[in-house]
């Protein structure tokens, strides 16, 4: 078995885990499985790409590569804007669609269905705007440097893995230790009681979208930087995202991250045995196993 699968798995797992964080938060706080979440990843990547082009065009002096990475300063700047725009997209969708259905008292499953319809529309809109041709943040080639033990990784890949861990740690600390995090956990347990306790539930809902869409954008850019950007990239990640969120236990941020890493590693190792064409089936198999053996997930509470 090729040990390089560890690096491949960690990289794929970082993207999946970061994306699954938003999914698990919306699932536990807004109480529905959001099928548009994958498309937030894709939109985040494309919006950042467009902004990068814009910034690069306006400020040519930013066109210097940030050694040892493959991209220029325009990319991190664009990602900041991309996050803001992805968050706006999520908030707009909540205001126009999900929020209205919630206010009407519609069943969660109707909101799931609406998210399914919206996801198709969002994805096809990307295809219309940017065409189905893959796009790239950078065409610069990077040499994978040896890390020892027969492992190799490019600086970009190491950056992605490192950034993911920092983001997850910060988010986890916020949720477990800040007033905001307490309020989020309270709303996830009982939204009506949260209002009685003085929590502005609408504000927590907005906060959930901000964190979820922000992480989705970063995950989308990471996937775009290391592989490529396609309108269907989010859709293809949706099953791994769901599997990671459920495997980790709905509502758990470290759970989503660990779930993502497990799925990334499982994919990387399994494709060496069954072939790359079966990659998408791996997360399905894991999902089925979790539902059979431990439906509450690794860090979830039974019956929760």
């Amino acid at each position, binding site marked *: 078995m090729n040990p390089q699968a560890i690096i491949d798995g960690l990289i794929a797992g970082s993207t999946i885990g970061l994306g699954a964080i938003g999914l698990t938060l919306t699932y536990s706080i807004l109480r529905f499985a959001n099928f548009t979440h994958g498309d937030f990843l894709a939109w985040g990547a494309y919006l950042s790409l467009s902004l990068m082009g814009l910034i690069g065009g306006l400020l040519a002096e930013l066109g210097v590569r940030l050694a040892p990475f493959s991209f220029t300063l325009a990319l991190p700047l664009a990602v900041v804007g991309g996050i803001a725009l992805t968050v706006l997209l999520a908030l707009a969708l909540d205001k126009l669609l999900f929020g209205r259905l919630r206010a009407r008292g519609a069943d969660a*499953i*109707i909101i799931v269905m609406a998210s399914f319809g919206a996801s198709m*529309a969002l994805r096809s809109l990307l295809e219309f705007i940017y065409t189905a041709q893959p796009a790239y943040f950078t065409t610069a080639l990077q040499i994978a440097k040896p890390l020892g033990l027969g492992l190799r990784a490019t600086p970009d890949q190491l950056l992605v893995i490192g950034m993911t861990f920092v983001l997850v740690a910060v988010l986890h600390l916020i949720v477990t230790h800040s007033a905001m995090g307490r309020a989020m956990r309270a709303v996830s347990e009982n939204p009506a009681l949260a209002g009685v306790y003085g929590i502005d539930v609408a504000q927590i809902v907005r906060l959930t979208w901000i964190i979820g869409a922000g992480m989705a954008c970063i995950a989308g850019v990471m996937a775009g930087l290391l592989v490529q950007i396609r309108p269907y990239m989010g*859709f293809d990640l949706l099953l791994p995202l769901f599997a990671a969120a459920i495997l980790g236990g709905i509502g758990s941020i470290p759970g989503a991250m660990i779930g993502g890493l497990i799925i990334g590693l499982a994919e990387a190792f399994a494709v060496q045995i069954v072939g790359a064409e079966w990659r998408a*089936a791996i997360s*399905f198999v894991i*999902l*089925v196993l979790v539902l059979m053996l431990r439906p509450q997930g690794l860090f979830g509470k039974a019956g929760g």
Partner: protein
Amino acid sequence: MELLAYCAFFLTIAMTYAIICLGLNVQWGQTGLFNVGIAGFVGLGGYISAILTTPEAAERIGGFGLPIAAGWAGAMLGGAVLSLAVGLLTLRMRSDYLAITTFGIAVALQLVFQNAETLTGGAFGMAFVPRPFAGFQGNAFAFNLANLAVTCAVVLALYLLLEHLLRSPWGRTLRAVREDEVAAQALGKNPASLRLQAFALGGAIMALAGAVQAHFIGFIAPGNFLPMMTFQVWAMLIVGGSGNNRGAILGAVLVWAIWALSGALIAEVFPADQQARAASLQIVVIGVMLCLILLWRPQGILPEIRSVSRHLGRRHKDQ
């Protein structure tokens, strides 16, 4: 004559969609089960029937050359078995777990269709799926009309069967379970088992639709069973009116008409190299339409007659 032949062709395809919608209506409209893997169930039926009925081929397993009716029966059995497996796994959990799992089923089956070349013919699919009335093939009009008649007969038979079932004690209990599970349980009904039965029945009907479609077209390939199909069928049922079997059929014809007409329009208006891109606008339109109907007329064109689905209206007041 050519136009009439096309109309017959168009209606036959619409009727195969109507069969899928009727199956979905059993699962969603009557029982409230959200299936996001319709394309997988339909594809499974198509492939099973194709494998059972195609003539022997050197490069594949299967090719049993059985009669078409045996293919249809095999498809329904396969659809029911898959539904039972999915149902057993997820129906005791939150409703969205079924959605996520069926979504996964469709992804996994799509991979099987594409990659299990020795069984499914891989990306190129299977040709020479026997077509009913193949003898008429020389005359497109007669051929399409005969097939339309058969497909309509299937739709009618299913419609009558489902209407009968819904008026039966089984159907009444099913709705009781959907409206108020606790009360139904108190009356000694087993909601889990009823849901499972409904899900399996719906899955069998969807698989039958796949078989009917495969035999009409005479060819089957993985590309026919993309998530797009699931999405179209949902739009059909929601537009037509979930819970209402006539609504399901009406929705299928209507949405398929919108789809075909907008497709024709795009072919007319856009240059050839832009058509794939413009086709994505079709999906945007249907997606937005689905959301708008959920927002403004969740009961669809033909609402459920007896009682509006609890899933579409207000919650119980004590929630």
